[in-house]
């Protein structure tokens, strides 16, 4: 996993609420046996029409918006457990998702792939959407060490929460799996007395 420390970038705003993982990557594009290449089908049915032509009114197809931060409406990532949603966002080039609420499984999947979910207040989210509407070059700075997100060139700033263990993992690029493997002897010991009925 890639390390995450600080990210400064313009943003792509997507104000829809309850964006589910079927929108992020529709099920019919989950047929790969590798982790790579899902970015081309990110938001597939919002980006392309049934003929495969670009829908110009969708924000990801608007060249005046760019950046590695997606700012989305509340309850982002609800629905299925498909990690392909996190892979698709990462593969497309996103490194952080900012929203006022995340679905549980998506949040875990994002953290396991070096994609930072930044949960902020409804008010701060509204402010970002408003400023981006006024100026497409509005830039966010996300500092993981200080758990702080700020809108560059303004006084708007907010702290965000992240599990301390997950923060360490992201800062150092560690996976859960290495940690669990290091606990093997304890797991074996647990199995000695654990009875499964």
């Amino acid at each position, binding site marked *: 996993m890639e390390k995450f420390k600080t990210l400064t970038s313009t943003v792509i705003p997507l104000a829809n609420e*309850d964006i589910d993982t079927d929108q992020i990557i529709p099920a019919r594009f989950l047929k790969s046996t590798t982790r790579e290449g899902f970015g081309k089908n990110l938001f597939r049915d919002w980006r392309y029409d049934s003929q495969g032509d670009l829908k110009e009114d969708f924000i990801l197809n608007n060249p005046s918006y760019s950046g590695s931060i997606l700012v989305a409406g509340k309850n982002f990532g609800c629905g299925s457990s498909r990690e392909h949603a996190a892979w698709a966002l990462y593969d497309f080039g996103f490194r952080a998702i900012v929203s006022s609420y995340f679905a549980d499984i998506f949040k875990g999947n994002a953290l396991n792939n070096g994609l930072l979910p930044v949960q902020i207040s409804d008010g701060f989210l509204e402010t970002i959407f408003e400023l981006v509407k006024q100026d497409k070059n509005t830039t966010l700075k996300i500092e993981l060490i200080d758990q702080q997100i700020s809108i560059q060139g303004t006084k708007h700033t907010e702290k965000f929460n992240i599990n301390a263990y997950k923060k360490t993992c992201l800062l150092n690029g560690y996976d859960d799996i290495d940690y669990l493997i290091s606990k093997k002897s304890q*797991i074996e010991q647990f199995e000695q007395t654990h009875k499964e009925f």
Partner: protein
Amino acid sequence: MGKTLFEKVWDSHIVDSVENGQEILYIDRHFIHEVTSPQAFEGIRRRGAGLYRKNKIVATADHNVPTKDQHLPIKDVLSKLQVDTLIQNCKEFGIDLYGLGHPYQGIVHVIGPELGITKPGMTIVCGDSHTSTHGAFGTIAFGIGTSQVEQVMATQCLLLERPKTMRITINGELQRGVSSKDIILYIISKLSTAGGTGYFVEYAGSAITSLSMEGRMTICNMSIEMGARGGMIAPDETTYEYIRGREFAPVGFALDEAINYWKTLYSDEDAYFDKEYTFEAESIPPMITYGTNPGMGIGIDEAIPDNDSDSFKKSLKYMNLEAGSSLLNKKIDHVFIGSCTNSRIEDLRIVAEYVAGKQKADHVKAMIVPGSKQVEKQAREEGIHQVLADAGFELREPGCSACLGMNEDKIPDGEYCVSTSNRNFEGRQGPGARTMLVSPLTAAIIAIEGKIVDTRNFVNKVATV
């Protein structure tokens, strides 16, 4: 202070607590399928350490499989590659696979319980959000991502933050024509798609304990649709009866010993829940969804609500419906009966009982996909297949099918599908498809009438599922 059912099961699976609040949870059973496992196997292969406990993994092929001519090679090249990869991986690592052609094949959340693999007090995971289904047995069961599938393969454990607890109590008796699917759609419509995020839910109350195991599974299955990681119901006589005699269920002394333990699995009277909700069964109508998430549900005779938010407006536009209007008399193009929510033998029985001697409406395409080969076999033995075929329903072979449209079973652009599945997201059943979630009984009635009707006028007794 006493413990909740969730805490009893969770605490008995803690290997270690890590200083910053994470806990190492031991996993008793790991179900895998073709879509979310290949990348995990790849990771295991790269590490070279192999699987930690291969006998705790059970595999099946369900998401991608065709539901017609399963004896022939899969036509879709990519689907075939995924299913073949699962076969290869299971062979290489020595995992039990109930794949295509096996008499136990089926939707992963249907076969686990019906084979007696799912038992009270266990922890169960699968790379599929509807793993919550197994909670109906008093297990802690939840969906995980592929990185976690790899963690469980490598260590039989997960590193997790303990979720908060919620209890939802439903007391009283259900109205005529109302079933477990209506209960859960009602709950989600009250709590919204995010109302359960961060929680593990226990369902309790007389309307829950009077349900069959199939009905309980339908409720726990959709816990994820309100954002909850999982749902649970305390095991009781109904649970033990369901398990008794199944393929992998304990027998004799081992079963007695197990039941003695299972009897300790309930929430103590003085247990504390972080959140509690109570609903009256009598106030739950037959439900239907009108929008593009499972929280957008109403009583079948109610008007579509209004809301100023852009997301709500976008949703109604996608469905081509208007706020304030009624769904009654709306013409329906497709009826899909299937998915891990409602494809068990009781679901098929209730549909067959209603449609026996009737004919589906001419313009409706009605498809029934059983949850497993065993369900299909039992339906044949009970004559259900013939009743359904005579009524004009197309009977398919087991799989996830049109619930998520990964195989050929898709609903065409712009058409309406009344579905017993679990998600009405945009494009879920195919690009542009418009899904309305209902119970199997409601789906059966609508298939016959060809339009949305107040189902209470068509039944004279309480649905049993």
